[in-house]
């Protein structure tokens, strides 16, 4: 079931909470307590805006166990406006064609389900930015 494993990541998964380095002000996601840029301790929490743009994208057809029901699903790397790059699924695309550079925003969705009676894992996905300025 791994309940604790997902529970302890709730701030990251549901709210995109990362860290900010007190020394060099680098915004860090996922949180790692040590700044990847300057190596200093960085434990100050930082709330990301959730906005960013598509860095790259594809579609998963051959899904791993736990995701078979969702396939095919769109997968992307998103460059957050504060700097970090994250991997996540795209959602709410409708019939929109995805492009590199497309503005997107974070939403909370179901990531996976472990069978009919298993746990549902929720987390961030990204959808096209509503009211996007072109």
């Amino acid at each position: 079931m791994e309940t604790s494993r997902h529970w302890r990541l709730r701030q990251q998964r549901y709210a995109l909470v990362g860290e900010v380095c007190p020394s060099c002000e680098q915004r860090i996601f996922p949180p790692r307590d040590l700044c990847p840029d300057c190596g200093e301790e960085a434990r100050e929490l930082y709330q990301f805006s959730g906005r960013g743009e598509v860095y790259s994208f594809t579609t998963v057809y051959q899904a791993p166990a736990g995701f078979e029901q969702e396939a095919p699903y769109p997968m992307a790397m998103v460059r957050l406006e504060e700097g970090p790059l994250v991997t996540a699924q795209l959602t709410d695309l409708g019939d929109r064609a995805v492009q590199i550079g497309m503005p997107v925003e974070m939403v909370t969705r179901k990531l996976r389900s472990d069978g009919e009676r298993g746990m549902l894992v929720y987390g961030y996905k990204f959808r096209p930015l509503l009211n996007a300025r072109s």
Partner: protein
Amino acid sequence: MANPIAEGIYIVGVGMTPVGEHWETSLRHLALEAIQAARAEAGGLRPQLIYVANMLAPALSGQSHLGTLVADFAGLRGAEAMTVEAAGASGGAALRQAYLALRSGEAEAALVVGVEKLTDKGSSEVESALATAKDADYESVHGLTDTAQAALWMRRYLHEHGAPADALAGFSLTAHRNAVTNSHAMYRRAIEAEDYRKAAMVSEPLNLYDAAPLADGAAAVLLVRGDRLPPRLPHQPTRIAGSAMSTAALALHDQIDPLWMPAAAESTRRALQQAGLQPEEVQLFELHDRFSVQAALALEAAGFAARGQGWELAQNGAIALQGRLPVTTFGGSKARGDAGGATGLYQVAEAVLQLQGRAGENQVFGARVALVQCLGGAGGTAATHVLVQESKTGE
């Protein structure tokens, strides 16, 4: 002054099973077959130390503790033995550990065997097992697979460097051509540019020919310290002139620039420096082409092409057997087949066949210096070795 021969570490035997779907052969039998072949080349030499390179046996075969399993099954009980795991770089990492152990003086002869059994399970189980080498909390939990990640990587590469849609085709064409005459290859058939263009999409823009097939296999390499070389070896031993391993971010999204592989660059630089060689002196490069985009990035990281230009070497014949820098000379992961943790040992064994003049129709003529690089994950681990064939006078 230390004796340079005594200080050197030499490869005195190699063995490989064909890569493929070995329905009738178990993990331990595959390992045994490769080990026996490697030991036979060194007069049955008995190693004191065994490193087993493996990536997925705990997940796919319910089997860990492979060091003892293999030592026991191969008639080598008593030897020191353990598993080395570094995802797809396990083979190179295990060779590196054996090299270090021999250099330490604690052992005189070491066996490195890579073995992988991937075809006992269905594809979603294999995808899940492969995904354990990613960041479980921030990559795999989103349903990311190895193949999808390579597609993300490839799209960005083509986009950022303004490369055409078929820019990476040359890597697959070269690999398939070289595998035709390789008796241990999985796909012994050539493909044409047209086949690549018409190939089924796996995860756009990545097609069937951009991804290596995963299958079963085992490859073994026997190493001996220079001052303990057995007399009357059938083949002139090959020296490991450089050995280095380096890490980068685990997750692709955490790389400072996902289109630059710092671990590959750093381990290549250090291995060549140890060997006292410049990149121009490398005569063949067994790079790790699990996905075609990795081949381009490996050429760039090693300094054989400028950033964003690695794909061009696959367009102009430079990487063919007769080219300036032959790569994947026996078909690479793409056509020989990728056997997970065993892949790094296939690469080394193939480079040894080249340097010892035993490559048959795949021979790169006059090759005396080979670079061999094994990658784990999205370039998170790189193990790079320089192999050198010395002249018979030992100069």
